């Protein structure tokens, strides 16, 4: 293969809700091991695009390719198995289990031992150790034996990323990982995303509201406006694009 094939690629992707075209003929490609951010004002279709890519919604037009394979017809569970992992805007964890157990269960799911009911679950120490490593990775190891519901909001987001990493996806779809987080907690999450990116094993697609935060983080930035892709380029180029400045920084900055 000459040029690296994009890990995920959408082609003229369109979804219509009644008369409203939420995502309008978006063709987007993410190269392997890069980080692409999707920005745009509220209602630009960012989360809808995510839902199309992860299989929560069915498109009304266009196709999606993952590693060159057409996955438009696959449901969300099948895409998870292919290696597309996604985090949600709302935190989704096991509140009454410990932090370590949250991650261990994700690892257990991949380990293929989950129907075993005659052996002790602690007879697999490698899962616990790996879970702890992942907690170290997201800087949450200090709370490993805490019950998940007692974590702060920011810590729960970190836990969710650890669970996501435990599923070992090739493509991470992160939907506003800093949403609802206090200002002090945001830099740690961005640092964590940068770490994952620098490790060079995963491709990341990130939806984010805050333009300045993703400038240095992203390899490329795609800008959506009213369901259309108006720009997709390197951060420096995007930030100088007059249409972007007008559409996003001009119009959307007020409510951001």
């Amino acid at each position: 293969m000459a040029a690296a094939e994009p890990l995920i690629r959408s082609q003229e992707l369109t979804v219509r809700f009644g008369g409203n075209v939420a995502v309008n003929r978006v063709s987007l490609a993410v190269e392997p091991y890069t980080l692409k951010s999707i920005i745009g004002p509220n209602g630009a279709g960012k989360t809808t695009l995510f839902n199309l890519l992860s299989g929560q919604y069915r498109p009304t037009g266009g196709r999606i390719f993952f590693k060159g394979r057409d996955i438009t017809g696959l449901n969300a569970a099948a895409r998870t198995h292919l290696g597309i992992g996604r985090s949600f805007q709302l935190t989704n964890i096991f509140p009454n289990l410990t932090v370590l157990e949250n991650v261990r269960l994700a690892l257990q799911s991949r380990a293929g031992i989950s129907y075993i009911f005659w052996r002790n679950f602690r007879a697999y120490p490698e899962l616990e150790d790996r879970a702890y490593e992942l907690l170290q990775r997201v800087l949450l190891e200090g709370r490993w034996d805490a019950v998940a519901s007692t974590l702060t909001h920011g810590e729960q987001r970190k836990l969710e990323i650890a669970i996501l990493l435990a599923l070992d996806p090739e493509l991470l779809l992160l939907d506003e990982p800093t949403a609802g987080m206090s200002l002090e907690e945001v830099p740690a999450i961005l640092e964590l995303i940068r770490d994952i990116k620098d490790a060079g094993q995963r491709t990341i697609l990130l939806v984010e509201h805050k333009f300045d935060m993703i400038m240095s983080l992203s390899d490329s930035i795609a800008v959506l406006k009213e369901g259309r892709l108006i720009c997709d380029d390197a951060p420096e180029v995007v930030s100088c694009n007059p249409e972007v400045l007008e559409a996003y920084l001009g119009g959307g900055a007020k409510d951001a």
Partner: protein
Amino acid sequence: MADQHPPQTPVQAQRAQEAAGRYTRAGLWLQVILLVLLALEPWLVSSFRVMDVAAKVMIFAVLVASYDLLLGYTGIFSLAHAMFFGLGAYSLALIIHHAGAPLWYHLPLAALLATGLAVLVSLVVAFFSLRLKALFFVVMTLALAQFADILSIQWHSLTRGEDGVSFKLPGLLDVGWSGGKLWGLTVNGRLLTYYIVLAAAALLFVGLVRFVRSPAGRVLKSIRDNEQRATALGYKTFNYQILANVFGAVVASLCGVLYALWVRFVGPESVMSTAIMLNILLMLIIGGMGTLYGSIVGAAFILVAESWLADGLRAVKVFLPDLMVLQRLADRWILYFGVLFVLVVIFFPKGLVGSAREIAARRRARVRE
């Protein structure tokens, strides 16, 4: 084993600590002491009544624990659990009754039949009603339990209806058999049956404990906590709920076989009725849901109260015959039982064992600080 790799992370340190303290845990010693006491019970107290209550506590402890697997660990609220108990009890009773004379192979055959029936019926229950919403599931299982109860009363040619079936056990287990004395105690069929019940109940209980502490058991716990999340991790939650349903039903059914073995009489009232189901629920609530060991405490609490609370109050009546008020109260011993139950629920909302664990955990946390 731990020497080559000194513990590095807190997780490994905790694991090493647990492995080292494996045989010095308080819980383990409690279990050993309980087991020894139960094994020596016939020598410690020479009363058939005490032995009878001890055997029933063992059987019901396992039965309630198997229900805890459904309700406390998986969040499945079924009212058909007593039905599985009844299926097992009738399996043994009817095989011996219809065979005419008790033979040895009737016992394993009954265990096999009880297991088979439990698997079959619980699969049917699971497939037809587990996908329903929680409330409908409860109603479905209640209807099924009622159906089984009515069947056991009406199908006279098979079950002898409300008269029930009393039967004899083969060979050494027969009440009539007696094999001389051992350390001052007559070895007879009753005593041998007691030990069969003890061994089987212990084995089944260990099986349940292993189940909830297995990888599959952990998945069940995660399903109860956040089913949607468990699905997103790639777990087919329906399969796990079926597994728990079938496992719980098989254990309940085997408890029924043990109960029939011990009582040698099976009737709709004693093994199939809704009253049994309510008893199971009460025992579970008193002992504590999601603890498994709570079922031992709950079963002991209710069975002991049922057998001796009435006696105690009758004694009051005999010794203080002049106090009419007291006599009236003694007649209503069941009322005291109700009060006792309400008190437990008020002061120990998580059940006796659940609340005790909570207190212990809080104390441990305080020590660490």
